[in-house]
């Protein structure tokens, strides 16, 4: 037998994969043209997209930025489509409503500080001490927006101290019922005490910035004010309601279920009307309760009911073993909720929670119904003006883009968060 074998003595150098196995081509073949059906859908979809863009892009690409009125656009032979001048002309109004020009640095600063305040909440790598700033931001931010005496926000914060002192004093006498007394004391202070004390302190030591009344708020700034306050407040209230709904205590459970079902069964617009008209009847006479504040409360109460149901879904998805393990280790109710149950339930509910946030933010446009000038309300005002009468698409497109940017960032953040909290592998 003759030995007839041939063995290559060197390794072949690596060669690039044949064309069509890599990059674009491979991707396209796998994702767009993997089957006949898929290929047909790809071709049809592309055709539709191209058709739409062929209409839309020429309409949008118009040298109309400088136009001062719709008339000017129509008369200009070079312009045959969108009249963007309205955005330039009314940009300030769409952003700030009728907020005084000289004071507009305040909402700007409030937004920047807000980013600083939410940063440690959103990203856990930042130093924990920053949370202190997050805690005082609500008062600082509100003061920047509405202005007035610097004493007011300080006295509002003092309300918490008053509540705490009341709790401490009553605790020895009536135990946990002291909570009710504490809340009562704080609310009475906020409603009756602050006004006169603040005025008195201000007369002694006047520090403050120019007050801007709520009636001058408007535009995207108003949407942000209502939306972000609503978001920040509805989450904790929603958590408490969700826990209340699960409670063993009959009264607490009934109240939570009743509240959630009542609010969810009522349209938000109704609640906004209640805020604009009715709420003042329930207030003690003489107190002037700010309209925007009333709207924020209503939007929050509304969103909290939905939030509670979303979080309840997360709670229900947790295996009972988690509750039992926490109990068996000797953790009390609040600790097991805080350390074991809520972190997991909230994580499960992130998509739903962010969905509620986005819904809430977009629902702020409903305030135009009760006469507040949010961007949508302003569109109507602008369309009613002599210069821009008859204009339709440009403003809605712009406002939609603003909202979309905001909601899309929230959506992206939630996806980042879900990935980060993924601990199974």
């Amino acid at each position: 037998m003759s030995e007839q074998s041939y063995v290559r003595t060197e390794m072949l150098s690596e060669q690039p994969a044949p064309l069509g196995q890599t990059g674009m081509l491979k991707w396209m073949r796998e994702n767009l043209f993997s089957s006949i059906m898929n290929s047909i859908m790809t071709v049809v979809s592309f055709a539709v997209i191209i058709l739409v863009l062929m209409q839309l892009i020429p309409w949008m690409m118009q040298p109309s930025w400088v136009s001062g009125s719709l008339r000017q656009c129509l008369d200009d032979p070079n312009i045959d489509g969108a009249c963007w001048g309205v955005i330039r002309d009314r940009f300030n109004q769409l952003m700030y409503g009728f907020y005084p020009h000289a004071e507009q640095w305040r909402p700007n600063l409030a937004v920047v500080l807000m980013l600083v305040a939410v940063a440690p909440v959103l990203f856990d790598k930042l130093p924990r001490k920053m949370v202190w700033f997050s805690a005082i931001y609500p008062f600082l931010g509100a003061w920047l927006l509405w202005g007035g005496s610097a004493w007011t926000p300080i006295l509002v914060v003092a309300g918490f101290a008053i509540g705490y002192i009341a709790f401490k004093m009553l605790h020895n006498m009536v135990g946990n019922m002291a909570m009710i007394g504490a809340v009562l004391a704080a609310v009475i202070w906020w409603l009756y005490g602050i006004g006169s004390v603040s005025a008195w302190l201000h007369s002694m030591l006047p520090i403050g910035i120019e007050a801007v009344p709520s009636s001058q708020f408007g535009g995207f700034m108003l949407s942000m004010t209502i939306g972000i306050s609503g978001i920040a407040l509805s989450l904790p209230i929603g958590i408490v309601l969700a826990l209340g709904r699960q409670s063993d205590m009959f009264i607490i459970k009934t109240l939570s279920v009743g509240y959630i079902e009542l609010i969810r069964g009522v349209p938000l617009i109704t609640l906004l009307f209640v805020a604009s008209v009715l709420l003042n009847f329930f207030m003690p006479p003489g107190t002037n309760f700010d309209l925007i504040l009333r709207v924020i409360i209503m939007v929050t109460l509304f969103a909290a009911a939905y939030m509670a149901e979303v979080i309840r879904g997360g709670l229900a998805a947790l295996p009972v073993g988690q509750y039992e393990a926490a109990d068996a280790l000797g953790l009390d109710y609040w600790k097991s909720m805080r350390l074991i149950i809520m972190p997991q339930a909230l994580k499960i509910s992130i998509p739903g929670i962010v969905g509620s946030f986005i819904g809430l933010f977009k629902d702020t446009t409903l305030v135009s119904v009760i006469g507040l000038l949010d961007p949508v309300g302003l569109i109507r005002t602008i369309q009613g003006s002599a210069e821009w009468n008859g204009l339709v698409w440009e403003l809605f497109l712009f406002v939609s883009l603003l909202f979309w940017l905001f909601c899309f960032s929230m959506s992206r953040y939630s996806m980042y968060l879900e990935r980060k909290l993924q601990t199974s592998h």
Partner: protein
Amino acid sequence: MSQVEQKEVDRSGMEVSDETAIEIINMNKWYGDFHVLKDINMVVNRGERIVVCGPSGSGKSTLIRCINRLEEHQKGDIIVDGTELSSDLKNIDKIRSEVGMVFQHFNLFPHLSILENCTLAPIWVRKTPKKEAEEIAMHFLEKVKIPEQALKYPGQLSGGQQQRVAIARSLCMKPRIMLFDEPTSALDPEMIAEVLDTMVQLAEEGMTMIVVTHEMGFARKVANRVVFMDQGQIVEQNSPEQFFDNPQSERTQLFLSQILGH
């Protein structure tokens, strides 16, 4: 069970003192109309290791869950470590921090690392400083032979490893009594041995243990007493030798022939 039998267990150190750890007197429990536990009487001495067995649905889990108040009994008394279980929340928390429990499905906290799983209760319940709690946790993780997994998350561990972490997590609270509810029945056969080994080691150190299990090899080697339950009653309790070689009641004989029979 064969895995355990191969090892000679050193029982010399397993002295049972005559101090009472758990006393259950005429205890009854109902789920609605269903009478799950009927007149249970049982005394567990300190250092004693008790294996509870019986057919499915006989109330074994319910019995040991009553001991740390995961379930509430309706009649009779349970006295753990001298403290009577009543609806007083203070007593319940006290007992729970003295009694460790290991579950069939581990019930580790998936959002926390292994180390955090072990330090959480010492830090929040015992108020142990974080650093010290971590040292204790590492000590017990070494004991169950997985210190190198400390920074991983439960989802990254095998079932056997997770169950050993669960044991370490309980031990970090320095409990005086440990309860096990079928700790190996959710595990693949090759992982059962590692968990049983850990439990044998614990027994050798004199821990008071009540173990619900069908691992009869473990019962034979480690238990002082085997308790057989059926339909919510303790039918028979005896030393393992007597229990396996000379079962008294018919129901016990039937049960043993079923699980050892084939």
